[in-house]
């Protein structure tokens, strides 16, 4: 009797498994390799789930493959073994590598092939421009951010500074830092995250200075050279090194290594990605605000900043039929409501103008003015959000920043290594081992060798 029931149970389980398995088999799987962790990873998975539930044909399967570099390496290996994922998330510094790879199905072509209309013109220019070649968008912008200025309002108050007025110029930053230090409101004036991105790449962009020759690399691979050792680069990095001596500036390492300096109140000001607003909202105990990146003023023009983050690349080598699903998923991600959802949940930028306008009309920016800083800085609009007015159209705000060729992005081969070289030399300069000129000269020489090497690899 017992054996009999056991046999029946087994049979029931087998049938059940078959039933559960069947609909999944009917769906076409779309593999999506990414590098998001924590809250960001959860949001990404939620988005894939929403897409899967919105239709019955395709099943997007997100898979985390490590950090950005590891994800890219894994995708390259998989592509060579002829089993790549459909979609891979690649950070902005890998753009040139992907463009030159010959392994990519350009997003623009994909959408055109499946006759899915996407209003590319509606996307924010500095974001789309970074990933466009010959007028075609090659990858789908996904998580984009730009560096902004964070400051501790409590420390400002303690030092007798207006808590609603972040410094606008680097001279202000210096003066504020000295007041803050004198008042004992913090141990250091300011620190920085992602040193090359915030202090070299974006400082050149926002001051309308070229970072590299050939139009920052957009003009071709052959003969591109770095230009960060010119007068502007020397001035800015040299000033940071000088400030480092009296604690106006405190270098805190690469990536997000310096985050604790701001979070635990050691440094009163901080330059870091706008994507940290969410994390700081949860993790910071004091009152804080955001502002645009400080500027050196005349004779430099005030230009828009450049982005960071990652985009989704579609890889070649999958069965033709499956690409329709990829196109459908990208279409889903491009929808304004998805853009808005992604922005609100992660702090990354919503990248279509429609989404930004909708957020504005929903008073999102009035309630979350910190979230507006990055949009203003990227588009050149004034930093305060225009209050949404029902029915009435606000007078178009006058642009405060210009968009120039120098502020449209960077396109360099071996960029990961170049960033490493730049940050190494910044560390040598800040440690007093080299002068700003010497360090930047060395960074340029080493980077140029890497650029030459990249050009040689893709010459063939």
């Amino acid at each position, binding site marked *: 009797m017992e054996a009999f029931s056991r046999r029946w149970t087994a049979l029931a389980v087998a049938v059940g498994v078959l039933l559960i398995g069947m609909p999944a088999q009917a769906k076409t799987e779309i593999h999506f390799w990414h590098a998001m962790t924590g809250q960001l990873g959860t949001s990404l998975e939620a988005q894939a789930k929403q897409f899967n539930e919105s239709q019955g044909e395709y099943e997007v399967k997100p898979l985390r493959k490590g950090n950005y570099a590891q994800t890219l390496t894994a995708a390259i290996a998989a592509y*060579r073994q002829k089993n790549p994922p459909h979609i891979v998330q690649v950070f902005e510094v890998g753009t040139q590598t992907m463009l030159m790879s010959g392994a990519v199905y350009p997003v623009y072509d994909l959408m055109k092939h499946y006759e899915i209309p996407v209003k590319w013109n509606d996307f924010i220019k500095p974001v789309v421009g970074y990933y466009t070649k010959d007028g075609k968008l090659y990858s789908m912008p996904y998580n984009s951010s730009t560096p902004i200025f964070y400051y501790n309002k409590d420390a400002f108050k303690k030092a007798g500074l207006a808590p609603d007025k972040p410094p606008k110029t680097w001279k202000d930053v210096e003066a504020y830092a000295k007041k803050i230090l004198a008042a004992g409101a913090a141990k250091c004036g300011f620190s920085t995250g992602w040193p090359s991105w915030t202090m070299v790449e974006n400082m050149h962009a926002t001051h309308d200075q070229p970072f590299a020759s050939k139009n920052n690399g957009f003009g071709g691979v052959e003969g591109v050279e770095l230009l960060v050792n010119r007068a502007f680069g020397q001035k800015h990095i040299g000033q940071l090194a000088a400030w480092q001596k009296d604690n106006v500036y405190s270098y805190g*390492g690469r990536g997000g290594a310096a985050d604790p300096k701001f979070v635990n109140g050691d440094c009163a000001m901080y330059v870091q990605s706008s994507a940290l607003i969410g994390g700081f909202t949860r993790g910071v105990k004091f009152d804080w605000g955001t502002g645009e990146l400080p500027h050196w003023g005349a004779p430099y023009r005030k230009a828009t900043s450049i982005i960071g983050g990652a985009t989704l690349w579609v890889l070649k080598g999958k069965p033709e039929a499956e690409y329709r699903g990829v196109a459908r998923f990208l279409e889903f991600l491009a929808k304004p409501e998805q853009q808005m959802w992604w922005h609100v949940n992660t702090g990354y930028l919503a990248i279509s103008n429609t989404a930004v306008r909708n957020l504005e009309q929903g008073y999102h920016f009035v309630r979350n003015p910190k979230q507006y800083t990055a949009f203003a800085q990227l588009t050149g609009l004034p930093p305060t959000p225009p209050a949404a007015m029902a029915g009435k159209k606000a007078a178009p705000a006058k642009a405060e920043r210009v968009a120039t060729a120098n502020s449209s992005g960077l396109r360099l081969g071996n960029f*990961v290594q170049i960033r490493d070289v730049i940050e*190494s030399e910044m*560390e040598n300069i800040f440690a007093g081992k080299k002068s700003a000129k010497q360090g930047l000269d060395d960074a340029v020489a*080493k980077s140029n*060798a890497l650029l030459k090497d990249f050009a040689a690899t893709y010459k063939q």
Partner: protein
Amino acid sequence: MEGRFPGRILPYALLFPSIAVIAVFLLVPAVEALRLSFFEVSPFTGRGTFVGLANFRELVRSDIYRGSLSVTLLFAVGVVALGLAGSLAVAVLASLRLPGFGVYRTVLLWPYALSPAVAGTIWALLFDPSTGPVTVLLRAVTGLSPNWMMNGTYALAVTVVAATWKMLGFNIVFFLAGLQAVPQELREAAQVDGAGAVRVFWRITFPILSPVTFFLFVMNSLYAFFEVFGLIDVMTQGGPGGATEILVYRLYQDAFIAARWGIASAQSILLFVMVGALTLLQFRLAGRRVVYA
């Protein structure tokens, strides 16, 4: 002693698994690395253009690579010198029949059992520039608060100490075994002749230990060159300013971060040649002074 295998095939059949594993995981990749080192490889297609010795020429001329080489030599000298001296001292203490010496001997072996990632995390936490116990203690006692991870010299020193500590257990076990092989009579005879403890150690114990010391010398050199990747990756990622970027870490960066397979393969070949030459040199020079009692 005439137990021979029946037939000629069986011995080869028995050897086959080991040879197959070595071939698949060592020989084939090594040959492939040698081949790739003469190519400039496009990461996605794997197709390469033959560039002859250009990769090697570029490495020899590269400031980054030469910097990495000198860091590696400093690192290796530090790890070997500190490791051998430290572990010999500890082993001599542990060989004394103090109460509870069995416990000490067991505990001393622990660091060796830790994975490099765990060891690296422990040391990174100890020397954390703002919250690390070492930093806090130093600040309380001396008022100084050095930023270990921003100063190249400190960072290199801390990683050397961490790498040495990780290998300490291994070294101590061999030294302890060696010390037990020193005949008691010899020492007693020397003592009767009026030699002090220091003299006994240098004249009797140390020469008898020389085969063990030489073995550990070679092992520690290999360890410093090849096996500290995990530790560096967790503690400093080669920074600050490349101050702890040893050759293996540089190689990893070029191969797995930048996907520059050609130049990374050339580095692996250079590294292989350098360590091979170093080991030969060690056998030639130091090997002669070893007393195999």
